[in-house]
């Protein structure tokens, strides 16, 4: 048995400390140690994008980082976006455009879409699709997701 690592991660503004095995991935830590269950584990090999979160300001796959690697990092999940009033227009657009059905992919979709919008990219649908290609929606609601992102960019009011 490997030794345990004492890890402190700031998650959605809250300092969370726990002693964990090195093999625990960041999303399992966020869900089970910190209790933020908004981020979802889908494929656990970086393909589906459901676990996409912000780590120190960058969108990353939460399943492809070990929690021990995030010691001292600042993490934002979908709960944090809502709690900090971020991505307000994007969240409203997802509702208005019916850009979710079951909602499993939505926490990752929002983080990836937010990165795209905040980088000042265009509302061109092919460019949006290229960026969002790493997030799967198994209800296949891609049309509405692209609509929502394009609507936010076209409104010119930011995410």
């Amino acid at each position, binding site marked *: *048995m*490997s*030794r345990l*690592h004492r890890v402190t991660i700031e998650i959605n503004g809250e300092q969370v400390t726990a002693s964990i*095995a*090195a*093999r625990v*991935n960041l999303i399992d830590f966020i869900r089970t140690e910190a209790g933020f269950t908004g981020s979802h584990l889908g494929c*656990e*090999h*970086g393909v589906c*994008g459901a676990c*996409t979160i912000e780590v120190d300001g*960058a*969108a*990353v*796959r939460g*399943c*492809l*980082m*070990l929690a*021990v*690697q995030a010691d001292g990092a600042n993490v934002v999940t979908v709960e944090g976006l809502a709690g900090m009033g971020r991505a307000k227009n994007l969240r409203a657009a997802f509702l208005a455009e019916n850009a979710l059905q079951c909602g499993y992919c939505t926490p990752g979709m929002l983080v*990836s879409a937010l*990165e*795209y919008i905040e980088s000042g990219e265009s509302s061109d649908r092919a460019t949006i*699709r*290229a*960026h969002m*290609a*790493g*997030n799967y929606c198994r209800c296949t609601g891609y049309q509405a997701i692209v609509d929502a992102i394009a609507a936010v960019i076209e409104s010119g009011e930011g995410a």
Partner: protein
Amino acid sequence: MKPVDFNFERPASLTDALELMSRDDMNVVALAGGQSLLPMMNFRMVRPDILVDLNGLDELRGSEIGPDRARIGAMTRYSDLASNAELMARLPLLASALPHVANSAIRNRGTLGGSIAMADPTTEMPAVMLALGATIRLASRDGERSVAADDFYLGYYESALESGELVIAIDVPTAAPGDAFGFYEVARRRGDRAMAGAAIARRNHEPRIAFFSVSDRPVRGFSAERILGENAASVEAAEGSLKEIDFHGDLHGGPDLKRHLARIVLRRAWAELQP
């Protein structure tokens, strides 16, 4: 799935990392960006006793741009490469290829050195480095050595990287006036593993043509290089010469499909070079 239990080390210096890597009584595995390694660990294809996290090694991060070459630290992330405007201006082939590497969230973590060391024949970076004639810098506890990209790739996930060694940097010749570059990739969906791809660098009318995701390693099309070096218009003859390549099938199809796709990506990557 979850990885096996393992011990985790996060060395603060390259010297410490190489000391850990030198242990031959256990399975010691180096962790760079982890965007391929962690899935392989989750599938239990890789079962480390000790995982050595290189993410604390700032000395392996960043790029130095010289008059005719750039030295890129192995732990430089794809997103850091793409946002380095001076580097991208000097390495246009790398700039063309980067947007095809998985997706933004993966590029925010994945590293150039990690991709080079993984030697996955379906990935872009080994072929780009082959086309550019890059040199891979390796280090072990016993010292450093360099291996040309041409000699580095030996087979599926197999390279000249030896036990106890780490990729520390990649030396890449930068573009000079008159050089031309082309890149083309076929994938089922943007960011997916390539079905086939080609990277071309032409200097002094001499092209270097590297294919990826067509064989068990990135491969050069030597006859195609010779044919197109003599006559840039003889693309059809160059396509015909590709039969010399040892094509390997994968989940997308057999060697015949790969040969067909290699012709297409050669033609399209070559078309990018034309004025």
